[in-house]
């Protein structure tokens, strides 16, 4: 038998020179010295556990903080108007009117999803949903932005299958509609897939809850799943250090998700909020109890006294350090007034959720944790949760970037014939990043809850929030790692405007941003430069568009071997719409409607899907970003949706005009006849650029002929360039680009839908 000897504060004072394995816990020598200075003694092993996880990059944002500040600084008064809760809380909260608010956030779960794709992705969904619950909201939808390695690499199959079935399993069992997202394949993500999960929730203004521990004497209650040895690989080091003899059980680094427990937890929490049983609440994610206690105390009256023995354990052999670090899923911590405890426990009992009182809120300014009758932690919680180390990491302009930007796709000969254009188009349409993702999204439930107004393959997802009025929200996520590799400042802005435009295209008005910034190692000065530029671009862009960043997360150390991933700042934009009945479809449904192209086209093919899919090339400079044009376009679309004078709207993104036209055809299987000669003449571009250029601030819309005059008037009034480029055609069942080529709807569908099934297996009914 081995016996665990807890390291107490008294013991720490008595043995100041005891060696502590801080390096194995990821702390640097100067950070360890800083902890000793803060405490005026060596930390106990429990304190070391807390500091090490809370001062990790993941929890402390120590490398990114100095840059992220811009999101709070580059803000106009107008941007704050609808913001109820900004950055820093579990998730931002935006007022969408009629007494309703919406909270949303996107977060990464990249590294666990490579080690164990199924559980990694599943717990990624679980974690972000708990962030939404802890704001007092009912989660109403999820989305996911995924990046995998090369589609034909032997390991990609394992990761894709695991991640998709993990998201499917967890999200479907939770009963949350999965309304959108995006999937890219690129070898830069081979040993480092990106799994970014977004969740959105709705609440009445008065139901807002925050993560703080206020009110001396209020109780600290841990509820939900029991605490086990999940995700505490690191803590075993401490355990081995404190075991009197023998070794500890080796603890795995993965966590196992239980969506059933989380579903019950959602309903339980909502009932607790309804019964006014909760003063403050925090979910347990990374760093578990260490994080929840120190953050709640820091944000409240400053102190907390808890007894760790009261934590309900799944595994009774856990040491105190392990309990502090455990990342067991589906747990929450609530601050409860003593007179409300009975009501609180009645609700948890009803839902068969276990709860235990760990201790109480104090105003001592200290977080004190007892274990087996002795004090094992006595710290100022702010030093753990708020005032961690901050680094101004060295940055360096990448040595390779000038050469990369000089290597323009202009060197490739342009297509001379319609047949050549057609071949390039079909190559692009079947390329992994443009191909249909039914194989993935068919595994997600988008019907549950009965409020889904738009979903994949529509450019944005849309959810009705109020059944009476039809008030709803639209969401889209975007990131283009290729553009960010060429220029992270512009690349981040391109992700922003693309996402913004996708929301606008649904008929909603963009209101707020959440971002998930996926980068390589911050210790690499070139990566740090990419990060700084991307953040600057995003902050400047948000100021231009007048929509605030409300939260998000940073994921560093994403690399395959020594090679960092392309910078991948995933930008999620949320917008609101007065009545989802006025939303805009993402395809045409009727015969003989006019198709208009809004915006102008430049010859911008560097870094495009065309360059990648047709020429396997990445180089040059990304498209220009035009914020005033984006705003004008969004305003026009909102007005057109409100007045019901366009029958569909499709954003032009990767793949350019021809991909948008294909989307319009395939959505409902209605063909179109299109001409591009006027476009070529007006904008001075050749056929290749007309079809494949990825110039921003462009959308195609369809308009019923009887609304033509009103529509053109609207465009003129708002100074949005407009050109009629085609008509919808139910008769021909094809997409025809006049004078160039024609492809049947059947063939479009076949090419578009073949790629993923060819690698991952058949689609049911496909």
């Amino acid at each position, binding site marked *: 038998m081995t016996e665990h000897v807890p390291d107490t504060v008294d013991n720490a004072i008595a043995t100041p020179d005891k060696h502590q394995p801080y390096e194995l816990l990821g702390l640097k020598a100067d950070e360890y010295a800083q902890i000793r200075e803060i405490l005026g003694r060596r930390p106990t092993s429990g304190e070391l556990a807390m500091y090490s996880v809370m001062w990790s990059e993941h929890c402390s944002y120590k490398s990114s903080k100095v840059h992220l500040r811009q999101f709070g600084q580059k803000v106009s008064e107008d941007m704050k108007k609808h913001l109820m809760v900004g950055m820093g809380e579990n998730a931002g909260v935006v007022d969408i009117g009629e007494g309703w608010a919406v909270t949303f956030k996107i977060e990464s779960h990249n590294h666990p999803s490579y080690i164990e794709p199924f559980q990694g992705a599943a717990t990624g969904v679980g974690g972000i949903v708990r962030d939404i619950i802890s704001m007092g909201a009912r989660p109403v939808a999820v989305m996911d932005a995924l990046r995998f390695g090369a589609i034909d690499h032997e390991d990609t199959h394992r990761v894709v299958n695991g991640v998709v*079935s993990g998201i*499917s*399993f967890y999200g*479907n*069992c*939770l*009963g949350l509609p999965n309304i959108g997202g995006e999937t890219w394949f690129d070898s830069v993500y081979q040993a480092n897939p990106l799994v970014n999960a977004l969740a959105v929730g709705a609440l009445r203004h008065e139901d807002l809850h925050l993560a703080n521990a206020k009110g001396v004497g209020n109780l600290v209650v841990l509820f939900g799943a029991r605490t086990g040895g999940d995700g505490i690989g690191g803590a075993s080091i401490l355990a081995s250090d404190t075991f009197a003899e023998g070794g500890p059980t080796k603890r795995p680094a993965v966590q196992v998700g*239980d*969506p*059933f*427990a989380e*579903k*019950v937890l959602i*309903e339980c929490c909502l009932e607790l909020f309804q019964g006014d049983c909760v003063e403050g609440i925090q979910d347990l994610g990374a760093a578990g109890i260490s994080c929840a206690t120190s953050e709640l105390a820091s944000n409240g009256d400053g102190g907390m006294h808890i007894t760790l023995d009261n934590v309900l354990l799944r595994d009774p052999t856990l040491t105190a350090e392990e309990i502090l670090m455990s990342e067991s899923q589906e747990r929450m911590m609530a601050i409860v007034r003593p007179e409300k405890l009975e009501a609180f426990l009645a609700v948890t009992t*009803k*839902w*068969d959720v276990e709860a235990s009182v760990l201790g109480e809120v104090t105003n001592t300014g200290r977080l004190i944790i007892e274990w087996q009758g002795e004090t094992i932690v006595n710290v100022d919680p702010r030093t753990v949760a708020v005032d961690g180390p901050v680094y101004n990491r060295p940055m360096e302009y990448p040595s390779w970037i000038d050469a990369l930007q000089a290597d323009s796709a202009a060197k490739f000969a342009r297509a001379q014939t319609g047949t050549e254009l057609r071949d390039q188009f079909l190559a692009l349409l079947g390329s992994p990043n443009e191909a249909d993702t039914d194989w993935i999204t*068919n*595994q*997600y*439930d*988008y*019907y*549950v*809850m*009965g*409020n*889904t*107004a738009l979903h994949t393959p529509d450019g944005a997802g849309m959810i*009705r929030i109020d*059944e009476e009025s039809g008030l709803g929200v639209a969401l889209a996520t975007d990131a283009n790692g290729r553009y960010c590799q060429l220029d992270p400042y512009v690349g981040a802005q391109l992700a922003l405007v693309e996402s913004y435009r996708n929301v606008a295209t649904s008929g909603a008005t963009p209101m707020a941003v959440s971002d998930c910034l996926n980068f390589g190692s911050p210790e690499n000065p070139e990566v740090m430069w990419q990060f700084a530029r991307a953040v600057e671009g995003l902050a400047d862009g948000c100021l231009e568009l007048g929509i605030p960043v409300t939260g998000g997360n940073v994921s560093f150390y994403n690399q395959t071997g020594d090679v960092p991933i392309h910078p991948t700042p995933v930008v999620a934009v949320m917008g609101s719409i007065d009545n*989802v*009945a006025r939303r805009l*479809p993402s395809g045409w*449904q009727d015969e003989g409607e006019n198709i208009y192209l809004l915006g102008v086209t430049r010859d911008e093919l560097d870094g495009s899907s065309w360059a990648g899919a047709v020429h396997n090339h990445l180089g040059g400079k990304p498209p220009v970003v035009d914020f005033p044009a984006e705003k004008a376009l969004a305003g026009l679309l909102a007005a057109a949706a409100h007045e019901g004078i366009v029958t569909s709207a499709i954003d032009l993104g990767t793949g350019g005009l021809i991909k948008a036209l294909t989307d319009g055809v395939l959505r*409902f299987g209605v063909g179109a006849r299109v001409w591009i000669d006027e476009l070529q003449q007006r904008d001075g571009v050749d056929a290749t650029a007309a079809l494949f250029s990825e110039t921003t601030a462009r959308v195609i819309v369809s308009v019923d002929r009887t609304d033509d005059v009103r529509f053109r008037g609207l465009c003129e009034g708002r100074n949005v360039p407009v050109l009629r480029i085609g008509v919808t055609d139910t008769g021909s069942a094809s997409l025809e680009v006049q004078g160039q080529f024609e492809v049947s709807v059947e063939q479009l569908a076949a090419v578009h839908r073949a790629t993923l099934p060819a690698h991952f*297996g*058949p689609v*049911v*009914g496909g």
Partner: protein
Amino acid sequence: MRVGVITFPGSLDDRDALRAVRLAGGEPVSLWHDDHDLQGVDALIIPGGFSYGDYLRCGAIAAHSPIMREVIDAANKGLPVLGICNGFQVLVEAHLLDGGLIRNDHGTFIRRDQKLRVENVDTAWTNTYELGQEITIPLKNGEGGFIADDETLKRLEGEGLVTFRYLDVNPNGSLNDIAGLRNARGNVVGLMPHPEHAVEAGFGPDADRMQSGTDGLAMFVSVLTDTVLSK
């Protein structure tokens, strides 16, 4: 008419079923799995979801939950009961309907707009459909493969108890394309697809317009105008 919807821990489409009852013109009543009280409802829906996580076998634990004793009793006395997806699995586990439901033959969860043929209109839940009517109803499940031994299958077909059949595509390997069943009396019906997700234009499957499909509404209307059982 009051139609109850039972919520088990892990039920997901319970609120959707309540909404469907309301849209059909009925009075929805929320029931809790842990009660022994059906609150005098005139009909009952066991909704979709993953009751108790569906970890043992789908519907297995729910079939033994407290309220099910009353449900089985009432069903045997003729109370109209509809089991949707997980609810169908519960009815099968509770032996109110025959056969079993196993993992989809392709091994993954599938969500699709599924074409069905109404094979039997002499039930409490299908009497406002036309016999042979083709309808589109969203399907979403991981374990919807219907199985039964040869003898049971022969009896189900012989007695005309197959109520819905998959058309065009069999999405999960169900024997004889069986999507839904009734009991001999016609008061109990179970099906894997989700009629409650095709009851409101704008939020259903694509039909002649985007998301305009409401083919599921007739199921909830049927029970309100139930002529079969009162015959």
